[in-house]
């Protein structure tokens, strides 16, 4: 393969539409006769519905219909289990799935109760106030620990417990490891991740064509193919009768893969009933309660080490806040459990978690998807151990890194993709070395920090490592077609939310077919163009769909060479495919254009031979046996104001290894954005609930996202250890930037304020200036 485009920093093909306001986003879909929906959402977190009176709303001018759960008739069904729990011996999993509209019981604030359909969104929202709902308020289950105790109110009364799942996984024998340890350290850690907050909220437009019996749904989903299949099943239509289009989507980061959101389930049903197109666009206040969160875990973790800081084992018992329903299975806590192991040799691991129902919004993966929680625990344990043993924080990490000759490295426990957690490849020490060099680690500690401290300023350094399981199966597919004008069309089933697929996939195709990258037109997320696949999640788009695109391009390349060798009556080895044409080696004037080959592949006369297919096109699939593992190290120098505890990041370094790089420009963008969200998680974003399960800061004025003043300039570097699990050698990178940032903040702030000397440990995320103040005040009291 010539490499003109693959690996090059090609500027994005999709940019022009986005820069000129011509890209189609969900709220830009305008259809004749379109109606607008608004959802009445519960303000109570736990309640019994006694009575709903919609009569006043129905009388309002411009209101077309109002629906409650009872109006849905047999269409009212609990959603299916979307992600089954992995096959782990002894696993407990109690499925309680969400419903389109609350019927008898409300289990979290924001759960929809009724839908108003009106001629305009303004009228639909007015009419929400006309609906009278009589509720019997029940005690809300909010506190994770209390919820897990016997005697707690149950979120699902029929279950008799709030245990959504219980999982125990082990590697080696922790008790034996701890018995021979020089040092064991045990602490309680709390880690909360927030809400992904894409700048575009969710939305759905549904259109039913009664003559063609065809449903078209525009949806801000990360998984259009699955939404299509679920909707077809629910509506009693064949899959060919339902077309789901994920247009340009304004950020996803995880929650947009949940399905069927109540709005996704109900709008198509209403479109059929009213035989009119209908739109719903989520507002920001709704988004805070109606779109899934990630939230918190409480870990009681223990590490056992030798005198020289080598890890003998880790034991961890943790609670995971699952929210009110669990159709998304165990992806988040399994990721926490697996990712805790990091880049380190941990011979013994004993990990148990209990996933707990609470009367809060459903928890599903958000960029990092539980990996942050695990990384925080192991990185903090190592920091505590380093302090106890008098070993440098970077040095204790180096001593425990998995050596270069140990790959593939089997961690034995089961990962979210149902396969044993085996690291396919890696070379960890150079990544650590590069990060230490880039941040100037030793120079800072020996020379700079003492000088700056002497001036009375509080500066600190942090370093944190992680491994990320990426690019999991099951599979993706792609159809590559050479058109008779020589342009290449590619369709794949994944949706896209800003990852640059229109460019990175085009780079793969352009090299295989010898065309310019601008001659490749990529379609993602339209089920009429490609109707198999899983979706965009788990840092898998480039890995899985990218390799499917490559396989299909290779097949088309073979076809083109075969057709040309027939035309020229020569061997395929004597042909070269470049500049949109196939030519004879050494005789450049003898060539045939790809477009002409495409025409020849669809002949008007003669026969298409048995075992061959017409058209210069191919559809191929790629499914990796298991996920490829990327790794990285983040390092940071911060200055903390000792009085206000405001924090300024003076230097931020990311060194990572995600295998072969398709487009370094896009990759850097992914890392930048990941780190920015990590910073938000570490120091800004906290979902604050009261005891009744009310989200107290449900606006962007109260739930603070990092701004351009909070996210520093970053220094990036990478190493390349190609994955053996896919032909392109790619590992995923979408989540990497966000994963170790919490651990890094805790370490760097402790270091800056010399908290160890004051008996203060940072064992929780998110932090904030006021939280750091409180922790120090608590430490002073103790």
């Amino acid at each position: 393969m010539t490499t003109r485009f693959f690996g090059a920093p090609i500027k994005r093909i999709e940019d022009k539409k986005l820069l000129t306001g011509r890209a189609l986003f969900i709220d830009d879909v305008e259809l004749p006769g379109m109606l607008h929906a608004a959802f009445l959402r519960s303000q109570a977190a736990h309640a019994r519905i006694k009575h709903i009176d919609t009569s006043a709303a129905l009388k309002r001018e411009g209101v077309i219909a109002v629906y409650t759960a009872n109006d849905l008739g047999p269409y009212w069904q609990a959603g299916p289990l979307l992600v089954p729990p992995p096959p782990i011996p002894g696993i407990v999993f109690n499925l309680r799935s969400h419903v389109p509209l609350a019927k008898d019981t409300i289990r979290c604030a924001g759960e929809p109760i009724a839908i108003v359909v009106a001629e305009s969104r303004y009228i639909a929202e007015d009419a929400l106030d006309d609906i009278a709902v009589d509720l019997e308020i029940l005690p809300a289950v909010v506190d994770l620990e209390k919820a897990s105790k016997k005697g707690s109110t149950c979120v699902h009364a029929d279950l008799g417990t709030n245990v959504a799942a219980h999982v125990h996984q082990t590697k080696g024998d922790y008790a034996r490891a701890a018995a021979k340890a020089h040092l064991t350290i045990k602490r309680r850690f709390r880690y909360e991740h927030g809400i992904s907050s894409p700048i575009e909220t969710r939305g759905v437009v549904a259109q039913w064509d009664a003559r063609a019996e065809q449903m078209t749904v525009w949806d801000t989903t990360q998984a259009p193919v699955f939404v299509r299949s679920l909707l077809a099943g629910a509506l009693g239509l064949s899959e060919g009768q339902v077309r789901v289009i994920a247009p340009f989507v304004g950020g996803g980061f995880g929650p947009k893969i949940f399905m069927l959101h109540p709005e996704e389930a109900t709008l198509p049903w209403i479109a059929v009933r009213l035989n009119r197109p209908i739109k719903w666009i989520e507002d920001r206040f709704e988004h805070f309660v109606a779109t899934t969160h990630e939230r918190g875990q409480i870990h009681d973790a223990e590490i056992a080490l030798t005198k020289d800081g080598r890890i003998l084992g880790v034991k961890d018992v943790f609670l995971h806040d699952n929210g009110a329903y669990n159709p998304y299975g165990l992806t988040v806590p399994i990721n926490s459990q697996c990712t805790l192991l990091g880049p380190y040799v941990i011979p013994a691991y004993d990990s148990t978690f209990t996933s707990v129902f609470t009367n809060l919004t459903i928890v599903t993966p958000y960029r990092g998807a539980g990996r942050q929680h695990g990384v925080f625990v192991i990185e903090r344990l190592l920091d505590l151990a380093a302090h106890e043993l008098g070993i440098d924080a970077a040095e204790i990490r180096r001593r425990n890194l998995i050596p270069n000759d140990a790959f593939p490295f089997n961690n034995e426990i089961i990962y979210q993709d149902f396969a044993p957690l085996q690291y396919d490849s890696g070379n960890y020490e150079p990544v650590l070395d590069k990060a230490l060099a880039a941040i100037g680690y030793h120079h800072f500690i020996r020379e700079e920090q003492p000088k700056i401290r002497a001036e009375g300023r509080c500066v600190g350094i942090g370093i944190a490592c992680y491994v990320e399981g990426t690019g999991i199966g099951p599979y993706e597919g792609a159809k590559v077609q050479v058109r008779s004008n020589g342009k290449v069309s590619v369709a794949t089933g994944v949706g896209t939310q800003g990852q640059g697929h229109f460019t990175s996939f085009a780079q793969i195709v352009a090299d295989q077919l010898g065309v310019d990258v601008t001659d490749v037109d990529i379609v993602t997320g339209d089920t009429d163009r490609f109707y198999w696949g899983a979706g965009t999640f788990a840092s898998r788009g480039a890995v899985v769909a990218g390799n499917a695109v490559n396989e299909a391009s290779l097949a088309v390349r073979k076809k083109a060479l075969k057709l040309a060798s027939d035309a020229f009556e020569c061997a395929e080895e004597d042909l070269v495919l470049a500049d949109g044409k196939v030519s004879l080696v050494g005789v450049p004037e003898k060539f045939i254009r790809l477009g002409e080959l495409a025409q020849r592949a669809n002949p008007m006369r003669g026969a298409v031979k048995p075992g061959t297919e017409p058209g210069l096109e191919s559809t191929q699939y790629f499914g990796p046996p298991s996920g490829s593992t990327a790794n990285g190290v983040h390092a940071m120098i911060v200055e903390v104001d000792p009085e206000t505890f405001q924090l300024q990041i003076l230097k931020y370094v990311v060194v990572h290894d995600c295998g072969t790089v398709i487009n370094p420009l896009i990759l850097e963008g992914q890392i930048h954005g990941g780190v920015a969200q990590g910073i938000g998680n570490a120091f800004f974003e906290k979902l604050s609930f009261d005891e009744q399960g009310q989200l107290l800061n449900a606006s962007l004025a109260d739930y603070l996202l990092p701004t351009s003043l909070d996210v520093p300039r970053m220094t990036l570097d990478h190493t390349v250890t190609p994955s053996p699990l896919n032909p392109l050698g790619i590992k995923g990178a979408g989540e990497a930037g966000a994963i170790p940032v919490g651990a890094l903040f805790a370490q760097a702030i402790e270091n800056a304020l010399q908290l160890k000397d004051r008996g203060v440990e940072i064992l929780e995320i998110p932090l904030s200036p006021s939280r750091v103040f409180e922790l120090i005040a608590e430490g002073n009291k103790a």
Partner: protein
Amino acid sequence: MADESHDITVEVNGASYRATVEARMLLSDFLRHELKLAGTHVGCEHGVCGACTVLLDGAPVRSCLMFAVQANGHELATIEGLASASGDLSPLQAAMHEHHGLQCGYCTPGILMTMTAFLRENNAPSENEVREALSGNLCRCTGYQNIVDAVLDAAGKIRAGAP
């Protein structure tokens, strides 16, 4: 009064529009759904995210915090009017492409409008000044660094005489 209507005339990107609007019609909704200028995006509807920023008589405003009727008699500029009539990108648009200053692109129109106005006032900004000016626009994808670089680059091009 929700149902009170007003006749308004606004100029958007040099074209004059007359319409009758409800008093409560947001300027953002008016631009997007009445004038079909959907390039202006709505992110929060409470004036924090900046995605809906347009220029009112040359100054950036949040179109979700204004009523359409308040724009009566004023000149508006939106994302649709930034490129030249022949389709050439403005220096800032071009720099955003060069520097990979956008990913999902949803916040981009608001950022382009905010920073276009900023560069008219200050075509030789420091990085800190750019970051300060940009801090009212939230972007969830890029981490801002490439946007900052794009604005600094565009400033240089504008100083050098680009249109």
